[in-house]
């Protein structure tokens, strides 16, 4: 594995991960389209993946990679299921506005 340029310190990776994660949270909280929310979740997952990989590299351990793969597998499965649910919701409700999908309340 080629070594990283020494000019890129660890904190940059982590900061990037944090920025991506906060963006994911913000998207998750403030966007109303369900697909955007879904994409925000993916963004958060990948932000976490990034920090896993970073630490794995830094600590010279393979655990982080394994975790990252697991997260990808779960994310793929979740994407499949989630998109299916979204399609069904749209078929039934003709809307993807997340605030209108609150029929559990009342």
């Amino acid at each position, binding site marked *: 594995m080629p070594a990283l340029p020494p000019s890129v310190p660890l904190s940059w990776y982590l900061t990037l991960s944090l920025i991506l994660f906060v963006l994911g*949270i913000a998207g*998750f*909280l403030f966007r109303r389209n369900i697909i955007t929310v879904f994409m925000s979740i993916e963004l958060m997952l990948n932000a976490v993946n990034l920090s896993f990989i970073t630490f794995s590299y830094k600590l010279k351990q393979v655990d982080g990679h394994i975790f990252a793969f697991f997260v990808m597998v779960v994310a793929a499965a979740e994407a499949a299921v989630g998109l299916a649910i979204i399609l069904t919701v749209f078929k039934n409700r003709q809307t993807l506005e*997340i*605030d209108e*999908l*609150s*029929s*559990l*309340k*009342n």
Partner: protein
Amino acid sequence: MQLWLIPLLPLAGFAVNGLFGRRLPKAAINAVAVGSVLLSFLWVLKTLSALGVFGGGNPLEQAYIEHYYTWIQSGTLNIGVDFAIDRLTAVMLMIVTGVGFLIHVYSVGYMAHEGGYYRFFAYLNLFMFFMLVLVLGANYLLLFVGWEGVGLCSYLLVGFYFTEKFATDAGNKAFIVNRIGDFGFSLAVFLIVMHFGSLDFATVFGKIQGMPVESSAGWMTAIALLLFVGATGKSAQIPLYVWLPDAMAGPTPVSALIHAATMVTAGVYMVTRSSAIFLHAHGALEVVAIIGLATAFFSATVGLAQTDIKKVYAYSTVSQLGYMFLGLGTGAFSAGIFHVMTHAFFKALLFLGAGSLIHAMSGEQDLRKMGGLRKYTPITFWTLLCASLAISGFPGLSGYFSKDAILASAYDYAPWMYWVGVFTAGMTAFYVFRAFFLAFFGEPRWKAAEHHADGHSKPDAHGHGADAHGHGAPHESPPSMWIPLAVLAVFSVIGGYINIPRWLEPMFKLPEEAPGIPWTALVSVAAGLIGIALAAWFYLIAPALPEELARSFSTPYRWIYNKYFVDEFYSAMVVEPVVDGSRSLLWRIVDVGSIDGIVNGTGKTARNIGGILKRLQSGSIRSYAAWVVLGSILVIVAITMAGGVR
């Protein structure tokens, strides 16, 4: 020897009649009910003869014990299901199964027109089972099982006419009053376990042998007195006797079997069985004698003025039970048991005869509405005459021997007790013959048409005036009823020659006997004869006299007639405070206030908390997400503040 068969046969009869009796024809119910008791009686005879009781020699010096299995094992306490026969049990077995069988036969005739026929016989068989367990049990716990069981059956049978309120009330009264006594009994059993570490009669009495006699009050006296509290409940002694007269609401055979011949003598049996304890606690023994004497005297006075024939005999039963306890208390245990036996004969006969009269009168129990019946019911007349003479202590009849034995013992103990006893014997003769004369002699005070009409309204509800019988006049009972009467009459006459005190001598020492007839016996016989003569004078020769006497002694008469207002007294002193306390304190304050308050408060609190928490469940997914974020930030902050993960 298969002792277990003796109680189990009636239990089987109970099971068959209780489970399938509704669908069985009457003949089958009769066969099962009477047959099971007959078999049980025969098995008693076979067992006793196998033990050599009917041969010569000296059988049953030691108790014959059969151990079946260990029932309770707890620490060093070991309670088995054991049955035992000794001489005392043998006597009780003969009484219970013998008289019980006769009364079963009688019931077939008496209950023939009643509803709930199978139910009646099922209960009666169940009673036989428990009574036999009671006398056969070889430890206090089995005795207690039988004791409670007969109490249950008594309750069921007193309340047999459960559509009538007074019958269910009487059943409840019998049951509740007995609870007081049983509470004392169970405390006594606990004390016995505490002090002897065992409940087996053999072990307990064996340990007592070596102990000193208690002169002042101690735990032995406590045990004896608590046992006696149990006996006062079951055997209807002062102050717990009040249930027995009311128990006459049950069918007459029940009164004869349970409330005269067998169950009410369970207390006498239990005290006799525990004689070792009582003999080591002389204070308790004196209490037994005094309570017995007081009961005998007071209930005899009440019996003088009762107008219901069954009530007369009921108070007579209480009085005779008092005699038995007088005998036990003065140390003549065998005389007490002797009187149990003779009393079983003549009192069962009195009740069955009364039942026969009630049957003849189609449900009428009021002596004032009888009269002149001897022409119509000759067999009942002669058998009741035997019983009345026997209970009055007429020389040569059974009551004479047993009562004399008790009175002689009372004289040795304290002469004043003897004199009260003699006076009571006079009253006994008087009220029994008062009932006898009122029922059989004089002008008929009934009208042939009238007693049909109210036949069904009477307590015993033994009316069949409206059914197929349709006689105009009173009639003699069917053979199934008068044959038991005749057999019991024979035993009432000759029962005294079965020398129970001699038979029980290995267990209870007999006093030295002077040769010839002691003067004490002559005096009590004279008292009985005077009582009979007075009754004859009052109710045969000068029928107007009792009215006048009642008028001139109106205050004492009113007290006697109203049974000294004891029921009213108990009602005011015990029942009403309990009811009022339950209503105002237990119901309104404890139940509604505390218990309901706690339960409802719990529910209300949960609802309130839920009401607050439900706002979190907004249904909006994004607010959930915000909470998740907030929460995770909080967790991270908390962990950081605590120093981070190491």
